[in-house]
């Protein structure tokens, strides 16, 4: 019968086995910069905005921050914010690329 390998070697082997498993790690931008998908860009008009925060409540991707700044790197331009804004303070502008 074969003897057990030393503890260090076994630990190393377990680590290697774990590396072989398909485990994903959480990371920002896991799907790339989804802002490139956009055809229309939401622009907030600070004059009309009453800071109710509904846009950030309804944003499916959570790209509108607490102080109501839109992260254009990741905003997909779905237009939910513009549609739900009670003051109509968000305009959808065509992207120029």
């Amino acid at each position, binding site marked *: 019968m074969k003897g057990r390998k030393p503890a260090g070697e076994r630990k190393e082997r377990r680590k290697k086995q774990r590396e072989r498993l398909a485990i994903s790690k959480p990371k920002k931008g896991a799907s790339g910069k989804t802002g490139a998908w956009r055809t229309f860009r939401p622009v907030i008009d600070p004059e009309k905005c009453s800071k109710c925060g509904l846009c950030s409540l309804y944003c499916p991707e959570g790209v509108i921050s607490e102080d109501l700044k839109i992260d254009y790197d990741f905003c997909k331009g779905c237009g*939910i914010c513009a549609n739900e804004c009670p003051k109509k303070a968000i305009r959808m502008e065509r992207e120029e690329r």
Partner: protein
Amino acid sequence: MTPPAHGEPSLPPVFKRRAGETMAQIPKEEYILETTSACPGCSSSLSLRYILKAAGPDTVLVIPASCSSVIQGMYPNTAVNVPVYNIAFAAAASCASGMVAGLRRAGRETKVIVYAGDGGTVDIGLQALSGALERETDFLYICFDNEAYGNTGMQRSGSTPLGALTTTTPLGKIHPKKEIDRIVEAHHPPYQATAISAFPLDLFQKVEKALTFRGPSFIHLLAPCPTGWRFPHGKTIEVGRMAVKTAAWVLWERGQGRLSVSAPSKGPLKRPVPLQDYLGMQGRFKGLDPALLSRLQQGIGTNREAILAEAERP
């Protein structure tokens, strides 16, 4: 958080003027990192944000094959900042059973949430769900219902409503929607509710409440899908709200054998808006056969009356 005693009035609805107040209850932490690869305007991304905010970091998600197993991002990265176990279609609830047994044995109170699509719940995962409910697994099962197999290109599922066009029912589905809520009800879970992505605060409160119960809880979540239901991306919330206003989707919760209607559905349940307002917004009901339409209307009416009768039962 201690669960409110049953029969207590539910928390106030999301009125626009009150949004600031009610939003303050919601934790600021995001467990969905920017961003998922979901379609623009996806209900699944939106719902997952609030479900995980309600559940907190000590949570494991079990996701069978569905849109949600795809939108997590590309290997070796993921957008979901809690452990996720991706598993085969038929095995989600049974996997969660084993996971809960193991975690409790190790003395851990980690919450296990199954987040399955309608195909993974009403069709393929039904026997596993029934088994887990019967074993009184301590978990939360969320059926994320976009009323078709969205991930593979909108084929009909058992949950597709009567008359809806899908890629496999090009003339409109001729069978009514399977009533999963009644099937689950027959297992007498401690807590059962319906929710919709258009009322994220209601969803948040229901998930929070469901997780306080020992034993299985079930949330049926209607998820308007812009791609599959054929409406513009920006109208996801509007369509969802209209589903509640027309009483095509009624928000309620049931615990200890008593049903209480949630605040956003209280008015519409008694005085619904004409169903056509909801159907007309969606391309999948275009050119609906009048015979199917009247059957659909009748079905929705019967369901509404049944809920009303149960809610008013002393």
